[in-house]
């Protein structure tokens, strides 16, 4: 979208534990949006993450990623972060650097465009090498 793209993933966004990786992301739209208006694709070290196993944590609650589009009442405040939990058998360790490719799509629910009145899609691809915390 623009210059604020770099804030979607902060430098300390990636963390590791015995179960896998956690990736914290933030929306950079000026107004909070519910999770149902967001979608993402994620690659770690060039490998696409298996969506079926991923969970998203928001407002202290955890949901399967595949339920995300249903979560119309879970708002991600503009200063808050949601965490993507990525289960892995042999996750990178703290101090490892991982290449992260994170495509965040925001479907703006009040800006409906085109003949079919689809929500405006504000998509951003963020690519960063992040140090596992």
């Amino acid at each position, binding site marked *: 979208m*623009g*210059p*604020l793209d770099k*804030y979607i993933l902060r430098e300390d966004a990636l963390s590791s534990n015995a179960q896998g990786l956690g990736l914290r992301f933030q929306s*950079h739209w*000026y*107004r*909070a*949006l*519910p999770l*149902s*208006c967001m979608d993402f694709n994620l690659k770690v070290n060039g490998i696409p993450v298996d969506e079926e196993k991923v969970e998203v944590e928001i407002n202290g609650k955890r949901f399967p990623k595949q339920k995300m*589009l*249903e979560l*119309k009442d879970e*708002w991600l*405040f*503009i*200063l*808050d972060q949601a965490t993507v939990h990525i289960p892995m058998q042999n996750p990178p360790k703290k101090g490892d650097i991982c290449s992260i490719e994170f495509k965040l799509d925001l*479907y703006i*629910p*009040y800006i*409906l465009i085109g003949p079919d*009145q*689809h*929500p405006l899609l504000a998509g951003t691809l963020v690519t960063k090498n992040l140090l596992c915390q």
Partner: protein
Amino acid sequence: MNHSIKRGVSLYSYQEEFFLKKMSLEDCIAATAATGATGIEIVGEQSIPGCPNIPSDKFVVQWFEWMDKYNVTPVAHDMFLDYNKKKGHYYTDEEAVESFKKDIRFAHKLGFKIIRVIVNTTPQIMEKVIPYAEDHDIKLGIEVHAPWHINSPWMTRHWEVMEKTGTKHFGFIPDMGGFTKRLAMVQVNRLIRQGADPEIAKFVCEQHEKGVMAEYTIYEVSRMSDRRIDMAVAELSRHNTFANPISLKEHMDRIVHVHGKFYDMTEDFIEPSIPYEDVINVLKDGGYNGYICSEYEGNRHIQDIQEVDSVLQVKRHQQMLVNYGVK
């Protein structure tokens, strides 16, 4: 005619510093007060965690403590209708009304007396929600946002609802962006930095200032260039329209609030793209006695090349209002 126009600030103006956590919510309120403005406007989902849900009692207490501490008043909450929150499902009117009522309860809880109604809200929804707004003593104002103007057919349909219901709780909120006489150079220059042809940009600016209908300008530019970025410059003229401020006159008793949209304030307190003095004179002559809330929207056009200083921009905008007789 006597007027008592008051000055306020939409905290939307400080969105850059707020997002970057350089300013807290309290800092935004303090910065507003420091300009001498007395009114606070917010986009709820931008400023208050949990919105549109009712904030916690603890937050509500804190909110009113801030209002007292800085001697400011909650004026307006900007409401949105998220028609398409779930893929493939659009709000029914009933769902839209329920969402709207939630905003009314939210605004009421935080002491706001006005809700800025997003422009794509239908007259049918307005009619259904007015009694609820009356019960909560909240005035609803449809946003008269470019490219619409106050006499656009869409606004006329809303005016008909105002007339038909006879309510005192529904009116207009003109946005100063609807008086864009000259295209904002911060917008034009950003597109030039992104590759737009400076000569085409100059042509578009001249056409706009002359009042040439945007569609003609877009057609002309389509003959000069087949590049998307040049068309984007031409389309600025479509999205940033100019209506004669006199058009407000006949609707003065229906104006509940004014959005002081601006893009860039010069050191000598001028907004080069919007003839503020002309609009304010119409409001003064008409006896308008509501707020004009500064709404800075230049940040997104300069953030790629410089640090945004919203506090300075708002300060200058408020000084401009004072210079034009808004005390």
